[in-house]
């Protein structure tokens, strides 16, 4: 009844799945010069730009430049965000005052803050439009299924960046928006204190998803510094890495 476990056969089965082949493209290793070239050109770590682009794949009427626009907005947000970090201190006493200083007494401060805000709102919009375009042109189909997966992660990260940035002005809107947003996390199945099945895992008020996000049981100074780190370092870093993957792979049509 039980067959002997063969690690080699198991690995072959794994690498033959659609999920694996969409993530590590180039096909099985045949050690021909064409095969070697395809593996190296298609490897995200070895090759940073697509070696070959089809004219139709970059036609403006086909892509509407939405991917490039979202990447440009990401760069604008990184640059203006770093600039704003020079004045902003993430503590309850100083955050709101530093934000007001940026608006009213720092030279070019209003411009930088407004540019960051408008670019953020625009990026959320453009990223959604990009997703619609990719869906309508069927660009998620084989062999680019994994790009759709990365794209979904990027959409979630963009929304999460928007959400974490929401708290940083530390005004009434920010406080209550994050109170409401994190309360939703406590309704998550299994990991939210008020969600279904949480009692099975012993998840309560002080160890659920909401608690982890807030760094406490209510929005406070721990939440502010937590959201600041997520907004300025953790999430932009992951988003940048994922962007890299998308840009590299979206133009590669061969498997």
């Amino acid at each position, binding site marked *: 009844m039980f067959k002997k476990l063969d690690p080699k056969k198991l690995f072959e089965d794994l690498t033959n799945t659609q999920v694996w082949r969409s993530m590590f493209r180039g096909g099985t290793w045949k050690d021909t010069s064409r095969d070697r070239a395809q593996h190296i050109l298609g490897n995200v770590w070895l090759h940073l730009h697509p070696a070959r682009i089809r004219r139709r794949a970059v036609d403006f009427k086909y892509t509407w430049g939405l991917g490039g626009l979202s990447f440009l907005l990401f760069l604008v947000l990184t640059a203006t965000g770093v*600039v704003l970090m*020079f*004045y902003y201190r993430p503590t309850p006493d100083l955050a709101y005052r530093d934000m007001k*200083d940026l608006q009213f*007494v*720092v*030279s*070019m*401060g209003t411009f*930088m803050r407004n540019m960051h805000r408008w670019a953020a709102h625009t990026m959320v919009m453009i990223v959604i439009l990009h997703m619609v375009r990719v869906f309508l042109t069927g660009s998620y189909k084989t062999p680019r299924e994994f790009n759709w997966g990365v794209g979904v992660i990027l959409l979630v990260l963009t929304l999460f960046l928007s959400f974490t940035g929401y708290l940083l002005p530390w005004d009434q809107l920010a406080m209550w928006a994050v109170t409401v947003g994190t309360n939703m996390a406590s309704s998550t199945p299994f990991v939210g204190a008020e969600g279904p099945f949480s009692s099975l895992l012993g998840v309560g008020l002080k160890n659920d998803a909401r608690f982890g996000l807030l760094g406490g049981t209510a929005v406070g100074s721990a939440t502010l510094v937590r959201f600041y780190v997520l907004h300025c370092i953790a999430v932009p870093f992951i988003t940048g890495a994922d962007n890299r993957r998308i840009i590299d792979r979206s133009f590669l049509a061969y498997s």
Partner: protein
Amino acid sequence: MSDLPAFPKPELTRRSFLLWGWAAFLAFLAGSVGSVLRFFLPNVLYEPSQKFRAGKAADYPLGVTIDKAHRVWIIRNEKGLYAMWARCTHLGCTPNWFPAESRFRCPCHGSNYTIEGDVIAGPAPKPLWRVQVVQTPQGDLVIDKAIMEDRPGLREKVPFFIALA
């Protein structure tokens, strides 16, 4: 050919138009870079003012009193009162006053100063800075650290010295 009317010379040639275009673009770039650099120089400071009130002259005892918040010494002697910026002229540390030795000693590189602010030991190149100290009609001391003097003869006169009976 000579009876053809001469082609009118355009007032604005393509070449000069493009040159002006590039010049305007470069001016815009320079302005942008300049204004971003200006962003990094704060307009409002959250540190003690250079000019501040320091109480009544009569409240200061003979000898050296340090105002740590404003980083000045207020020094009272038999003739009157003066103020010195508590900043070593070598590399900017704050020297300490040692009453037993009657001298300022800098902990960083060992410069020594007299109570007058003159260098008596160590690498300091210049005497300590006296700062402006004047009295309001009500008798409050007003110290302005932005106005400084270190030349003997001038530093013992108004507005760097207040004669007291």
